[in-house]
């Protein structure tokens, strides 16, 4: 019965959202997409689109059985995918490279094994229990009219956004009760989705050996450790990479399909962690800047599509409304009796700045934490410009450098403005914040170092 219950949870919280998102993607015209990114993007899209529905059901104290909406959405997605005439992929599963396909398969198998090992232990300690699962439990148990009390006293960092708790709530809703280990599954599935997206992205743009090595190097970072838990960090890394991939695809096509997808995934990033806003901005910035620098005609062309930016803006506004409604505060932004974050960054730059830089430099050198991926990117990209010319790094390498550089710089600034003991704060958070940009760094590094001949300027 335990196994059946677990499979039911996976069906409702992983398979159904993936089917739904994949169906929408295919019917919208994302044809020619390999199977792996179809399921990877499909899962992310499905989770992001079903989350508001889960929240709505919770607001009304579950007027219908919790599994109904995801299963119905999954069925719709399945029908849409069948209807999409060209549902059969024209890209090979992972970009046509057998080596990368094997590396992706091995990475997924090792990661899933870790996730199943984690399942032996119930969620009971650390942020996994007190931030993420606790919030999901408080929201699910309700009643909604009285959730302010547990949010204030039971949930730690209740101001954090809702996507991770909502994904876990889907698991509770599917079972009709609070769960203690099965609810990791939808969060862990973001890690699988990330590998399904990263493998093909590497295979399409980098030579097979470098692509396979970059994927396995990435697997050896903190990704595996945090990805097997219900922490939201791999979720954010996945949504950031998914948005980066979608923006790259939008840039290479007319953007009709991929720009809206990118905006939904950016909204997902915003709805995952407070830092999501920062990461979403860092991912979007190089693409926006490139468009702006291409001249007024290109910048203005397709301006109507900018309306899709309302989606991430709505996610941010919804989060702000939730915080205000329940009188929640953020330890960094609303520290009582302390100056604002920007003021603190300036005031503490002299004392904290060198320590933050030093810590991050060591982190970038720490192979077990970052796989040398961001460091390698920041070294290899300028060298590639010098040795091979600007054309080689235009596109994905330049975008990856900018996105990673901006996100790291912004994170370091936030650490400089910390209200906590600096050494403690860096020790508990810096490896996780760096994790958010590691997949983008892995892609940028592999392409900068060993680009596939036909794809140096590709998406």
């Amino acid at each position, binding site marked *: 019965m335990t196994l059946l219950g677990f499979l039911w949870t996976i069906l409702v919280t992983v398979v159904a959202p993936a089917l739904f998102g994949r169906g929408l993607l295919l019917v919208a015209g994302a044809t020619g997409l390999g199977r792996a990114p179809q399921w990877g993007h499909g899962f992310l899209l499905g989770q992001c689109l079903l989350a508001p529905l889960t929240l709505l059901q919770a607001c009304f104290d579950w007027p219908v059985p919790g599994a109904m909406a995801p299963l119905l959405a999954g069925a719709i997605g399945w029908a849409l995918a069948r209807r999409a005439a060209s549902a059969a992929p024209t890209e090979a599963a992972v970009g046509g490279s057998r080596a990368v396909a094997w590396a992706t398969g091995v990475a997924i198998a090792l990661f899933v094994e870790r996730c199943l*090992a984690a*399942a032996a232990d119930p969620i*009971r300690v650390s942020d996994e229990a007190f931030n993420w699962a606790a919030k999901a439990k408080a929201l699910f148990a309700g009643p909604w009219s009285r959730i302010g009390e547990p949010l204030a006293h039971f949930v730690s960092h209740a101001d954090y956004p809702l996507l991770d708790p909502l994904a876990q709530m889907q698991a509770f809703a599917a079972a009709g009760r609070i769960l*203690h280990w099965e609810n990791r599954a939808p969060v862990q599935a973001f890690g699988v989705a990330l590998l399904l997206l990263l493998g093909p992205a590497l295979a399409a743009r980098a030579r097979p050996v470098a692509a396979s090595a970059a994927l396995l190097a990435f697997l050896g970072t903190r990704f595996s450790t945090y990805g097997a838990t219900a922490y939201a960090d791999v979720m954010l890394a996945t949504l950031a990479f998914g948005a980066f991939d979608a923006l790259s695809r939008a840039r290479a096509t007319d953007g009709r399909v991929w720009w809206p997808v990118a905006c939904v995934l950016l909204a997902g990033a915003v709805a995952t962690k407070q830092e999501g806003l920062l990461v979403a901005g860092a991912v979007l910035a190089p693409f926006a800047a490139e468009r702006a620098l291409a001249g007024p005609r290109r910048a203005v062309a397709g301006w109507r599509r900018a309306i899709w930016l309302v989606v991430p803006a709505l996610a941010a506004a919804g989060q702000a409304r939730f915080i205000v409604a329940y009188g929640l505060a953020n330890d960094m932004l609303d520290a009582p009796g302390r100056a604002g974050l920007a003021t603190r960054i300036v005031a503490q730059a002299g004392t904290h700045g060198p320590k933050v830089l030093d810590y991050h430099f060591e982190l970038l050198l720490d192979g077990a934490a970052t796989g040398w991926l961001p460091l390698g990117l920041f070294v290899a990209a300028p060298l*590639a410009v010098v*040795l091979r010319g600007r054309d080689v790094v235009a596109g994905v390498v330049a975008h990856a450098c900018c996105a990673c550089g901006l996100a790291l710089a912004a994170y370091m600034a936030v650490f400089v403005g910390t209200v906590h003991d600096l050494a403690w704060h860096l020790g508990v958070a810096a490896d996780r914040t760096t994790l958010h940009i590691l997949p983008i760094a892995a892609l940028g590094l592999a392409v900068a170092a060993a680009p596939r001949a036909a794809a140096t300027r590709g998406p």
Partner: protein
Amino acid sequence: MNAGAALALVATAALAWRAGATLVAEGARLAAPGQPTWRQRLLDPTEARIRRALGDDATLLFALQAAAPRPALVLVARPDGDPRTLTPERFKELDRRNGRIVQLQALAYPDPWLQEVADPYSVAAGLAASGRDVRVLQLAGDAPPADAAAWAAAELPGGNRLWARP
């Protein structure tokens, strides 16, 4: 070999080194003793997983859940110590107690909601007076209420008690 190829070689070698390190680490992890069995991962019921994780405290958790179901609020004394006078032994003791309470709290919610407070008996008396279903968990070694006659006690396993205002 041109400079571009050298860059590719060096960077790919560094990536391959990290990839090799990943595979070695994963191999060591898989071969390490103490890995959960497939039965523990896939077949054990949740209760068995909780018993494995909490040890003896699992019995307390299940007894507490049976004795004070939702919407009961169960208060427990917060581990408290002055950092200036804390001995290493006392620190370990408080740390152990805190670890017990937070795990019970995480696994119990919302049946019941277990909450640490500085003075559970007076907080409970106040909340009970306003009509709330509130109890106090007296862990073995904790002080009973000063006005014990005004409370009803239920025995829990391990020398623990659950107090309520009748």
